[in-house]
């Protein structure tokens, strides 16, 4: 059967693009971009690190010995540790639903997934104040009157167990989850749409169960798109300011996350403490960017492979 060995089609090199612009315009455009890039991206980053290191290592170490700083880092990590896995599961479920099934309201659902991106984070936080706050819909349960405590078992339970949402961890997690909801789903939907579900069907005819299909076929197929989404989601979760600011109440050692703590430190005395934590957040962002770029590259490769196998 050697005759059946047709060579694998190789892609022709893309034709070289002829640039019509004159050299002068090109130079001006490139310089503009470079100035913009330097002014708005490189310079701020440089300032943050310059300020952070301006008083030397000892000061940096001292900043991290501060109890409030340590607590804010812990709170940020705990919040991300809850919000990111939640959104990973939500995102997977949502992407699977809208790419595998056709149902009325499907495109509306896709738009709704994007909603947190269009809404100001402050509004995202305010939603939860309006629901769980003192004046909110569920306010009487969380801030009960004496009468409420007498009559409502739920209000008594919440009071006795000292359960709080607003100005506490649950509120911060809720607001963060809301703001970061779209990232995993958005990373997966185009990928899963392009891939189709022929491989899953093949697995089914070979006798694989639903869980086996998910773990052995779907998950490897979407791996890099998923990682990309999770990383982006995590970066936003750790850096979120607006939504968290509304629900947290800024209680030091209790409800201050890293971004909120940076603001407080800076307002108290515009010294380097704020910059040290800001630098830490920036390092996190740079690492994220690095991993994101790699994941993006791999996800694109996966997408290309899907397109090739479907041709």
């Amino acid at each position, binding site marked *: *059967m050697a*005759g*059946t*060995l*047709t*060579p*694998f089609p190789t892609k022709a090199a893309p034709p070289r693009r002829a640039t019509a612009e004159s050299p002068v315009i090109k130079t001006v455009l490139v310089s503009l971009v470079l100035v913009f890039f330097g002014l708005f991206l490189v310079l701020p980053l440089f300032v943050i690190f310059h300020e952070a290191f301006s008083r030397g290592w000892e000061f940096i170490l001292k900043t991290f010995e501060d109890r409030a700083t340590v607590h804010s880092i812990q709170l940020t990590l705990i919040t991300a540790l809850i919000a990111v896995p939640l959104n990973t599961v939500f995102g997977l479920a949502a992407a699977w639903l809208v790419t595998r099934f056709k149902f009325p309201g499907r495109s509306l659902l896709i738009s709704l997934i994007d909603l947190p991106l269009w809404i100001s984070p402050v509004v995202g936080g305010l939603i939860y104040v309006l629901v769980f706050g003192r004046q909110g819909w569920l306010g009487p349960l969380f801030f009960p009157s004496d009468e409420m405590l007498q009559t409502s078992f739920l209000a008594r339970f919440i009071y006795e167990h000292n359960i709080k949402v607003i100005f506490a961890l649950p509120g911060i997690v809720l607001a963060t989850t809301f703001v970061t909801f779209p990232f995993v789903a958005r990373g997966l939907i185009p990928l899963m749409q392009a891939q189709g579900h*022929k*491989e899953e*069907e*093949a*697995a*089914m*005819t*070979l*006798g*694989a*169960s639903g869980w*086996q299909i998910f773990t*052995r*076929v779907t998950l*490897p*197929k979407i791996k890099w798109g998923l990682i990309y989404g999770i990383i982006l989601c995590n970066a936003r979760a750790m850096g979120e300011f607006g939504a968290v600011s509304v629900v947290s109440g800024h209680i030091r050692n209790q409800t201050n996350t890293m971004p909120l703590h940076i603001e407080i430190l800076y307002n108290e005395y515009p010294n380097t403490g704020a910059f040290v934590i800001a630098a830490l957040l920036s390092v996190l962002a740079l690492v994220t960017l690095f991993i994101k770029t790699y994941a993006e590259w791999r996800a694109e490769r996966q997408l290309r*492979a*899907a397109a*090739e*196998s*479907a*041709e």
Partner: protein
Amino acid sequence: MRNGGLNVSSALPQNPPNDFMSIQIRNISKNFGKFAALSDVSFDVEGGELVALLGPSGSGKTTLLRVVAGLEFAEKGQIFYNEKDVTQRSAYQRKAGFVFQHYALFQHLNVFENVAFGLRVRKRSERPPEPQIRARVEQLLETVQLKDLAKRLPVQLSGGQRQRIAFARALAIEPEVLLLDEPFGALDAKVRKELRHWLRRFHDTAHLTSLFVTHDQDEAFEVADRVVIIDKGRIQQIGTPDEVRNAPANTFVEEFLELRPVTTA
């Protein structure tokens, strides 16, 4: 050995052996929205037969194949395997071997693991031990003459090679029914011809009942024992290639067959 699609009736099993799986399709109707993809389709595939579902694109032939496999469910009608009602069973319970039009190989697994997949996902109690899996996969790769490519990924293979891996993968679970959706549709003419002869030979040596979808009448007439011609979701004619060619049942069959000259070198 058969010759150029002529004198086919001799290949029709006069007394099909009893231990072959037969398929009964009874009054199948299926709609996509308001579009009637299949309307009251009934026919039998006898045990050991190789039957072609022939029709233009959009005729409903692929939908019917998917209903037989359990990948799609009909609103009305029943599917029987060996007179046993499997209408409510999903694809993963029916375990018919299915070869997809675009192969649907697992992109992240190499050739060996693609073929081994159906054995590895079995319940622990039914799963063969590792050496047995290896032996079975190697034997299958030898059958499709791709043993040297076991470590390759699907993207590194040619179309014809991918198709043969798809065959091997479907056969690994030792199905008694083999369903093929335009198995040679994406290949160039030369490879098509080679593979269709190979399919016929393979079908004759293996313990299989096969149903395959094609829009290419040469392919259908050359390979199949019987041809089911389908259009607009309805069966137009069922018969051996000779019967259909010599006595087309209606104008559609006549036109459909005459549109493409029946010539093969």
